[in-house]
């Protein structure tokens, strides 16, 4: 193969963007997430970021990060096994594990990396991994890297999982993998039933709580608190870049698991540690959650309901998720991108999902109204919805089914 052919093969198909007359991806933000967000020199209301509690721009978090940097510098320029594991990071790992109710934890630079590296560290070719059909790419790719048998089960369907657990045989260990909150639709996994099945079949449950930590549970401690899972026997992962408003990926569980990962998870051992400033930032967020969670949670859910009622009133099909996420079913990829374009034109920043992130003709536009949004601005957004819906529907008719 020639070099020209190689680069030719990489060329992007721009058909979708051309047809929808909009590219919603990689827009350049010119501001922080605090309202308003600026893009293309215009003001936007942020309904896209995963800043559920509105803490990404909180001055207390910023100050903690600055203090962390003053004391430890920008980076320890080493992997955790070498110079990267500052006392601050280690304390954060213990604090996060206790926060979610588990024995110990380890923090990687991202949860994609955590999910990606977890499985090769704890599973082998003679194991089997049962995984929710709609699990996040990081979990699927991490599981695939093991080279063992992968058995997908129907999304949030413990009945199907049970029948598969009854069928698989000849393996050393079974793992059952799910997310807590599926973020493209806001559904919550039936974790209680899954853990019970794992217990019955001797399988290890693995749950990615990226969209649940800091959101679910009476104290924001995530999916385990939400389901009253006090003695969770499996593996827990979560992103620190969503409600926890920083960056990083937690893996938590029993001490034996964490000790093992410290030496056998290459994604941890061979990657520069989470910068100390970020560790300090996450610590500050945990402090704030400790005192302000009830108020912030109330605002988050109020915002979700306000938005959901407004969306339904103008005829959008909103997926009836139980999480603080509103997801509009928008149809084909072109219809989906066009809907995001109409929101964008109205100054509302949203996230469109098209195939392969979601099934082919089930594209959706996701709106997350974080606790930090000013209620008056959200009210104005709801008032703009009839115009947005009308423009989109007219465009869909003119453009055909897309």
């Amino acid at each position, binding site marked *: 193969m020639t070099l020209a052919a190689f680069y030719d093969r990489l060329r992007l198909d721009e058909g979708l963007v051309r047809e929808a007359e909009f590219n919603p991806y990689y827009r350049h933000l010119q501001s922080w997430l605090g309202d308003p967000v600026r893009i293309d020199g215009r003001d936007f209301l942020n309904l896209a970021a995963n800043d559920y509690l509105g803490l990404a721009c909180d001055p207390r978090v910023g100050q903690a990060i600055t203090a962390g940097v003053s004391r430890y510098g920008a980076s320890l320029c080493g992997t955790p096994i070498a110079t990267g594991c500052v006392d601050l990071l280690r304390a954060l790992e213990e604090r996060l594990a206790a926060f979610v109710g588990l024995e110990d934890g380890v923090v990687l630079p991202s949860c994609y990396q955590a999910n990606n590296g977890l499985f090769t560290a704890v599973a082998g070719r003679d194991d089997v991994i049962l995984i929710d*059909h709609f699990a996040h790419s990081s979990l699927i790719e991490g599981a695939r890297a093991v080279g063992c048998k*992968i058995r997908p089960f*129907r999304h949030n369907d413990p009945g199907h999982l049970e029948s598969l657990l009854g069928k698989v045989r000849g393996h050393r260990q079974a793992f059952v993998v799910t997310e807590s909150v599926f973020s493209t639709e806001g559904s919550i996994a039936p974790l209680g039933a899954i853990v019970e099945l794992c217990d019955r079949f001797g399988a290890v449950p693995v749950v990615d709580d990226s969209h649940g930590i800091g959101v679910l549970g009476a104290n924001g401690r995530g999916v385990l608190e939400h389901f009253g899972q006090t003695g969770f026997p499996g593996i827990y992962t979560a992103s620190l870049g969503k409600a926890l408003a920083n960056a990083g990926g937690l893996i938590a569980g029993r001490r034996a698991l964490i000790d093992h990962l410290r030496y056998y998870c290459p994604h941890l051992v061979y990657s520069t540690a989470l910068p100390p400033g970020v560790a300090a930032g996450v610590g500050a967020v945990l402090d704030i959650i400790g005192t302000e969670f009830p108020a912030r949670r109330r605002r988050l859910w109020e915002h979700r309901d306000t938005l959901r009622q407004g969306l339904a009133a103008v005829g959008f099909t909103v997926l009836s998720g139980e999480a603080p996420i509103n997801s509009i079913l928008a149809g084909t990829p072109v219809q989906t991108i066009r809907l995001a374009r109409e929101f964008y034109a109205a100054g509302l920043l949203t996230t469109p999902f098209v*195939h392969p992130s979601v*099934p082919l*003709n*089930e594209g959706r536009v996701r709106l997350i109204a974080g606790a930090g949004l000013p209620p008056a601005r959200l009210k104005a957004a709801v008032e703009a919805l009839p115009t947005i819906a009308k423009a989109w529907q007219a465009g869909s008719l003119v453009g055909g089914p897309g």
Partner: protein
Amino acid sequence: MSLEEKVVAIVAKTAEKKKTVTLDTDLMRDLGTDSLALLMIIQALEDEFDIAIPDDAFKKVKTVREIVAQLRAHFPRLDAAP
């Protein structure tokens, strides 16, 4: 039950949404079958017929009818099964 009927039933059962499945159902277009969903179908067929389907046998299938054809090509004795 014919092989066709069994395959149609398996595809319908593994689909995420209740949809009418026929031999002409296009997996990608009509059901949004992604790589994990295809794996689910293949494994359900393996469970049903007690066979081991080679890794690349279903790489190019587009419709349910083509699944049946591939199955027949690889496992000619399936039609005789009860």
